[in-house]
């Protein structure tokens, strides 16, 4: 049974239970500094580069300035400028530059009884059924929505006002997905409720309950369509279990983020063991967007750190169906990966190999990636990082390689067969930090094509005290 589409409901359940109980496989999402790859969220254009801003914090009284340029041979360079500040309760960030997908900004300050802000919006209510959903059906939380997320996402643009400790009452007005929305969310103890409405009179409501490590949410619209999700987590020492179940109407789509509405029905289990000998993370998930369109995924990751000699991580993953509500269903995929990292004497080396196949044990590979990364630490804060990657991606498949720029993480879309070398140099300079990168792609038979031209970036960042 290679595809969820071909499967009868009974056999689909059997396979799903087998996946859940057996934890057949697994590739957990790698860290942003991994030599591997991530996948962009569903609202991103498939097969195109995707850029996201890390959500690092700025100390009180600090200001950060940055100037950058990027380009490739034969193309006019793209300049970017940015400023971030935080002082006496006033904080914000602004980016600008022609063609910069992260251009824009946000500013927030103290206001009577709370805080107010304008600009980029990426809120999260409850489990995210209406606002702040996870990008993937198997993920418990969004990594670019809500406070504390590692990345600053962009769900919309507008203004917000929060009252009370930790935002007991929140109102927002903004433009989300070409739609003007207004909403309010209030929380009293473990209970939260929110309403979201647009100019056309469409409205959705959310009722959530958070107690300890359990969180539940019910969302519904005026047509009576609803979705509910319950998430539980239990832990005993280094061992933790998490479960998540969702159900409801397939027709309910978030007004703010319709492309992140996710599946109408989902069941996910996660097991984590942070034992002294290593770390184990097993995930299993089943989901269904609509009849005939759903998927399943199981993943297992085992990582072990060694006292003096780095760390080793291996993983297995199996997927069925599709993780997207629209687009082509890729069917069965099974693969594995391994990554070793070590560092000694100012030299750090990371080696990684992963394969994903359309048949069992990674056979009929649709995606193969081999990568090596070398980092050398020099004197006075200088450093050199060289990453080389060789890949083979079958037609119709996408691969996104991670690039860590000084002010953003770029998921670079590649396809076909090729290799890529990225050289990054950092050094203190002009009162700040200078980072330069040169990327040299190698695509067989395409030496003169645009994709094969070298790409470069240059960035200067200075962080200072504002008073």
């Amino acid at each position: 049974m290679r595809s969820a589409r071909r499967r009868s409901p009974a056999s689909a359940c059997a396979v799903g239970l087998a996946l859940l109980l057996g934890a057949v496989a697994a590739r957990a999402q790698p860290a942003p500094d991994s030599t591997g790859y991530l996948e962009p969220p569903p609202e991103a254009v498939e097969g195109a580069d995707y850029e996201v801003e890390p959500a690092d914090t700025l100390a009180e009284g600090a200001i950060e300035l940055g100037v950058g340029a990027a380009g490739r041979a034969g193309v006019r360079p793209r300049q970017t400028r940015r400023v971030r500040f935080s002082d006496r309760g006033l904080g914000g960030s602004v980016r600008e530059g022609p063609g910069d997908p992260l251009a824009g900004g946000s500013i927030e300050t103290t206001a009577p009884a709370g805080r107010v802000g304008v600009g980029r919006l990426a809120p999260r209510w409850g489990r995210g059924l209406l606002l702040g959903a996870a990008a993937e059906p198997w993920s418990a939380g969004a990594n670019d929505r809500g406070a504390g997320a590692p990345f600053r996402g962009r769900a919309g643009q507008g203004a917000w006002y929060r009252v009370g400790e930790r935002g007991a009452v929140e109102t927002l007005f903004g433009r989300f997905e070409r739609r003007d929305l207004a909403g309010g969310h209030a929380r009293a103890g473990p209970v939260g409720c929110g309403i979201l409405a647009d100019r056309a009179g469409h409205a959705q409501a959310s009722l959530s309950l958070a107690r300890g490590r359990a969180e539940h949410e019910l969302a519904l619209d005026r047509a009576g369509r609803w979705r509910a999700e319950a998430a539980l987590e239990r832990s005993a020492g280094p061992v933790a279990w998490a479960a998540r179940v969702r159900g409801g109407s397939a027709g309910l789509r978030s007004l703010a983020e319709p492309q992140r509405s996710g599946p109408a029905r989902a069941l996910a289990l996660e097991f984590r063991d942070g034992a002294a000998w290593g770390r184990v993370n097993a995930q299993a998930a089943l989901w269904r967007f609509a009849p005939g369109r759903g998927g399943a995924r199981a993943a297992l990751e085992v990582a072990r750190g060694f006292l003096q000699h780095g760390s080793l991580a291996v993983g297995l993953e199996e997927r069925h169906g599709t993780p997207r509500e629209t687009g082509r269903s890729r069917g069965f995929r099974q693969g594995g990966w391994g990554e070793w990292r070590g560092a000694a004497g100012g030299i750090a080396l990371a080696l990684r190999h992963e394969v994903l196949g359309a048949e069992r044990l990674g056979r009929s590979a649709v995606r193969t990636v081999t990568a090596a990364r070398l980092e050398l630490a020099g004197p006075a804060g200088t450093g050199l990082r060289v990453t080389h990657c060789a890949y083979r991606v079958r037609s119709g498949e996408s691969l996104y390689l991670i690039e860590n720029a000084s002010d953003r993480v770029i998921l670079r879309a590649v396809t076909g067969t090729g290799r890529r070398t990225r050289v990054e140099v950092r050094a203190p300079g002009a009162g700040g930090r200078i980072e330069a990168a040169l990327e040299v792609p190698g695509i067989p038979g395409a030496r003169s094509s645009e994709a094969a031209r070298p790409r470069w970036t240059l960035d200067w960042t200075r962080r200072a005290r504002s008073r």
Partner: protein
Amino acid sequence: MRAVLAAALAVAGLLAPAARAGSQDFAPAAPGPAPAGGASVAAADAFLESGLPPRRAGAALDVSLTRWYGLPELETRAAVCAVGWRSLRVAAGLAQTGEPDVGWSAAGLACGVARPEGGAGLRAIGRRDRAAPAGATLAERAGVEVGWGAWLRAARGLDLWAAVPQSWTAGVAPPLERPLELGAALALDDLAVWLTRAAPVGDAADHAAGVALRSGPLLAWAFARDRPLRGGCGLAATTRGLRLAAVVESHPDLGETVRLSLGLAGGAR
């Protein structure tokens, strides 16, 4: 012309998709590309060939002769000198392949740093046709490749490495395409084993494995490669800083490759 010989190799490639030996002008007569770990020998040309700097410091001079696939007209003559001082490593070499009217000359330079627990190096090779057609531009008769390598001690006796001999190329394409190679070598006293995996250039990846055994001044090794399955063996003797090595590799379609090497080493620490 180098193109003629490269074409010969390409024909060989058609006969056997994995004709790549993973080495070119400065191929060492040493067991695998391991960074001088365990029972392997710190051949000066290994640094130039792979970008992996030797663990030990000191000076070395290697001259070698390689007859590829039993073809007298396809011989490579190379001389490499290497110097290591503290953690710095430098190697330079010259090589000629083929007859005066058909063949190419190559010059290589490698530099890097190495400590007992790890090392990293940068290597560059420039090649020029010995007999280029009249009017040919420099880009039509010469080429350059730049790459790097790094290794790290992952555990006691275990070295892991990555070598990218051709991160960047310009001008005439090198005779053989050499992709990213990952490897591991485990040394147990006088015994060493190694595995390598080269990223696919064609349909699938290339793998190699070998074992080396030291007995006094003698070092013997055997290795095997896939696509197609083939193998070889080597023997090296070292005495008073003088090193003599020979390697024979057999290919089911292309014949035998024989490599002889004579080296001097001194001041190693």
